[in-house]
């Protein structure tokens, strides 16, 4: 029988509210994480991602539902008996121990022989490039180094699953980018299942094999980064991941996988890929990424092509960000990649200029307006 590294079955976690009621921090979460997978729980703060992680770790027990790790139901197994280890957001290093003592702690709990412990601690420190730092105290290390100690301390136990709770949250942007790549490489190297909690969509897209997008305690969508970015199934998903433009309207025509909506603010109609089951007449939105919109001086298509006026342009080096007005105040943001130098007049749009905006139907998604 096939087992998963982690399985959450209809997990509910309720916390008492200050006003006497209850709130569901985790609301019927049901997901399966494959062995060796880099799986991210992504969502805004308070979406239940950290609580889900803490339930897997055993720090919280589910109010309803069950957690299985490697096919074993966990029930109320305490954290110290679970084959998982955690890298905490604040690292939670033992300040009274040296780096080496921190890393050795978990192995000492397993009553391993001293030489074996020493060998594995050295190995682990080498793996996170902290060789020779074993005698230092955590306080003597930089944030990035402390992060590595936390990682080594958890990985040295060779857990079935490594749980990471926003481990890069406290690092500056440059270091975070470096660590993202390093973590991903490390995960491929050790082949351990990573469950990674983050609110940073770019981080999740960069590192994950699959992402579970969460909001208000519920999992909205599970998929690969490409699926999540290219085919969001809800307005929240489209909005939370990356940047997107929304056009409001209602469904007037459904044709196989395509849907056409009548725009609310103008006479125009626009067609896009149908996401989910829509019915004619229902309120819907068309979602399109700014880099997928085409600007041109002449009309390109018969449909999904609108005349617009350039409102402003922002040059950001690789791209130029152009805001256009379709009329009635409907605005779209368009990212034009600067494939040729912007000093070349042909590549430059000026405010006030009339342009044609093309929304290719295969790049546009029609979503139910929830």
């Amino acid at each position: 029988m096939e087992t998963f590294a982690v399985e959450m079955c209809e997990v509910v976690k309720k916390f008492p509210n200050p006003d006497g009621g209850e709130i569901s921090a985790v609301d019927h979460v049901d997901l399966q994480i494959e062995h060796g997978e880099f799986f991210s729980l992504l969502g805004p703060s308070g979406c239940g991602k950290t609580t889900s992680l803490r339930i897997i770790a055993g720090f919280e027990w589910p109010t309803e539902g069950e957690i299985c790790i490697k096919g074993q139901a966990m029930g109320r197994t305490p954290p110290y008996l679970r084959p998982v280890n955690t890298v905490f957001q604040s690292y939670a290093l033992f300040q009274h121990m040296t780096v080496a003592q921190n890393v050795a702690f978990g192995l000492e709990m397993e009553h391993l022989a001293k030489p074996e412990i020493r060998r594995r601690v050295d190995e682990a420190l080498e793996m996170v490039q902290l060789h020779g730092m074993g005698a230092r105290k955590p306080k003597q290390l930089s944030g990035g180094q402390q992060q590595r100690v936390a990682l080594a301390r958890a990985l040295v136990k060779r857990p079935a699953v490594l749980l990471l709770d926003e481990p890069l949250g406290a690092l500056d942007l440059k270091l975070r980018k470096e660590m993202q790549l390093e973590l991903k490489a490390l995960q491929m190297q050790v082949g351990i299942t990573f469950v990674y909690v983050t609110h940073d969509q770019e981080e999740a897209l960069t590192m994950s094999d699959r992402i579970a997008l969460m909001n208000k305690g519920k999992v909205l969508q599970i998929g690969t980064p490409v699926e999540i970015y290219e085919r969001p199934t809800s307005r929240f998903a489209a909005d939370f991941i990356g940047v997107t433009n929304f056009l409001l309207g209602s469904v007037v025509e459904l044709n196989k996988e395509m849907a056409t909506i009548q725009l609310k603010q103008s006479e125009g109609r626009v067609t896009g890929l149908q996401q989910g089951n829509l019915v004619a007449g229902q309120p819907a939105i068309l979602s399109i990424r700014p880099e997928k919109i085409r600007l041109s001086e002449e009309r390109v298509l018969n449909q999904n092509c609108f005349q617009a006026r350039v409102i402003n342009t922002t040059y950001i080096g690789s791209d130029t960000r152009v805001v256009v007005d379709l009329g009635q105040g409907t605005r779209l943001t368009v990212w034009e990649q600067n494939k040729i130098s912007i000093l070349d007049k042909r590549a430059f749009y000026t405010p006030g200029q009339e342009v044609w905006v093309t929304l290719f139907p295969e790049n546009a998604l029609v979503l139910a307006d929830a």
Partner: protein
Amino acid sequence: MASNRSKSFTKSLRENPKLQGLALISPTMLYLLVFMLVPLLLVVILSFLSRGPYGNVVYALNLQNYVRLGDSLYLRILWYSLATATLTTLASLLIGYPLAYYIARAPAKQRSFLLFLILVPFWTNFIIRIYAWIMILRTEGLLNTTLLNLGLIKAPLDILYTPMAVFIGMVYEFLPFMVLPLFTSLEKIEFIQLEAAADLGAQPWRAFLRVTLPLSVPGMIAGSILVFIPAMGMFVVPDLMGGAKTVLVGNLIRNQFLTARDWPFGAAASMVLLIGTLIVTLLYARRAGLGEEVLV
């Protein structure tokens, strides 16, 4: 001219952090100098003088008070005081630790109430509280009556006016001085540290031994010093609860000053107590301090 000088003083005060610090502590320094250092010097000098026939002080320098303290009678008192203070410190630590731990882990709202309860006894005079203990411990007291009525004992326990009573009274008196620094230390330990220990495979008791206990060492040191030092000089509890049987060095000093009117000998005993306590405390703090450096 004068205003010019005060202006230049204000200016140099503003520009010189060292001077600011000095200005801030000088009232305290002055107070300590007048009311602490000067009397202490007087006691030092007094300890090298001797008693005249009518309890007056004879101004002739000599060492005879210190020689007299070498007598086995006094050595035994010193030893007994040291043992009592050490036992009091240990007992306060053993009783105080779980209490401080409980308060530190209590929900924030209860915590301040529990701390308040620890401080409530200080609202009542110490002597009155000692009399309350006498009422509890005496032969027909609360404790014996209760135990007799419950049939747990056949004859009343003789606790009052024994070293045991002194021990109980001293632990009672000094417990808050142990609990408060311990609480401060334990409260600072983030719960996530224990979660991390559990996550790495430590059962609760091992997490306690490896994480909580080492991190609370500073509180244990501070509490022990705060209990040990006053316990070394205690004389009220042995006076009231120990009967005439228990004499600590504190009683000896008090008797020399108030009853025997041998101020020089009392002063010498005070000096021995002071220096002895200082040595023990420094040794302890240094060892523990070394430990702390390793720990923190």
